[in-house]
């Protein structure tokens, strides 16, 4: 073999070939492979995170449901007790009202009785005075007698 232009031609071909492969194949492909590796690992991580989130959500869901159940039952018991108390209150109020009505009516009755008694008393006094007047009309001064009778009545 002699050193000829063929050798240099082949060297140039080789260098151009290497440069071309590097620029148009090696670099884009290795970059794509790297980014794919990254993508896959990111995807796996995301999937794992999603799984975790689902688990968390399930747990939260069940606790929420439990909470809601207890809340609902407490609301029901509250309502029951409240209704009972309302009924009780109403009963008490009614009883009180009835008592009040009874009391006022008895008071009124008493008042009326008293008034009637008073009236009767004065009428009796007037009648007895009339009787006495009729009996001793000529002997005694009317004014004097009235005074005496009033004193008696007041007593």
């Amino acid at each position, binding site marked *: 073999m002699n050193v000829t232009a063929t050798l240099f031609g082949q060297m140039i071909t080789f260098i151009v070939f290497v440069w071309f492969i590097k620029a148009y194949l090696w670099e884009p492909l290795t970059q794509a*492979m790297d980014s794919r590796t990254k993508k896959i690992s990111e995807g796996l991580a995301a999937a794992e995170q999603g799984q975790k989130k689902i688990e968390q959500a399930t747990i939260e869901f069940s606790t929420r449901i439990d909470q809601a159940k207890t809340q609902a039952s407490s609301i029901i018991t509250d309502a029951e007790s409240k209704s009972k108390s309302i009924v009780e209150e109403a009963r008490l109020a009614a009883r009180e009202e009835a008592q009040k009505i009874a009391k006022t009516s008895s008071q009124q009755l008493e008042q009326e009785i008293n008034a009637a008694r008073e009236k009767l008393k004065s009428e009796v006094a007037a009648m007895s005075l009339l009787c006495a007047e009729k009996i001793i009309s000529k002997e005694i001064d009317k004014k004097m007698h009235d005074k005496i009778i009033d004193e008696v009545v007041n007593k």
Partner: protein
Amino acid sequence: MDNNAPATDNPVDYIQHHLQPLAVGDGFWRINIDTMFFSILLAGIVMIIAYRVGKRVSDGAPTGMQNVLESLIDFVNGLVKEAFPKPNKIVGPIGLTIFVWVLLMNAMDLIPVDLLPKLADMMGIHYLKVVPTTDPHTTFAMSLSIFLLCIYYNVKIKGFGGYMKSFMVHPFGIYLAPVNFILTLVEELAKPLSLALRLFGNMFTGELVFLLIALLPWYIIPIPGSLWAIFHILVITLQAFIFMVLTIMYISMASEESH
């Protein structure tokens, strides 16, 4: 020379004729057109495929040719990462290019030895060597390019003084500097020489055996011919692989820190 005569009439002429490259020019400007043509043709085919794949590269699920090239790149990258402690941007593409190019040029050997030369003969071209790697120009072109790259890395990593020093102190220490210099020089020169000659020798002998088989009577040819072709597939791949691995090794040795 009568090219249409049966091969067996004049075996020596037949073989010599087949080993004669299609060349123009004299002295330094002698150019082996067949070698240049086939090597550039194969390189061009690879470049077109590479360009098409590189344009439409996707980082999603790879398909078709991208898949093939990605597994090749992965394969080469694995070798590079084993040899290089530090990442190196150029060795991977060099290794891939060498492997693909040498493999394809060697594979030209599997085309029946008389087919392309006969076709060329019909078109008025009387000499044709179809396997570029049976031309030492091709193998030396690659090994010398790598040798120059090794020198570049040696000087870049160790410095010019450090590189010279490695000639003096290796392998026997500074007191035997002249012996060391000769030994290291031989060692360094042997690298590109052996790299080029190994590939050239393997391919040349392979071609020669095909030519010898072609000299046999036509009814015997298929048996040794197919056997040698099957064996040669192994040689082709192995030589391409060896060339690539040694290239990676040499560059890695050149870019090591001095010890």
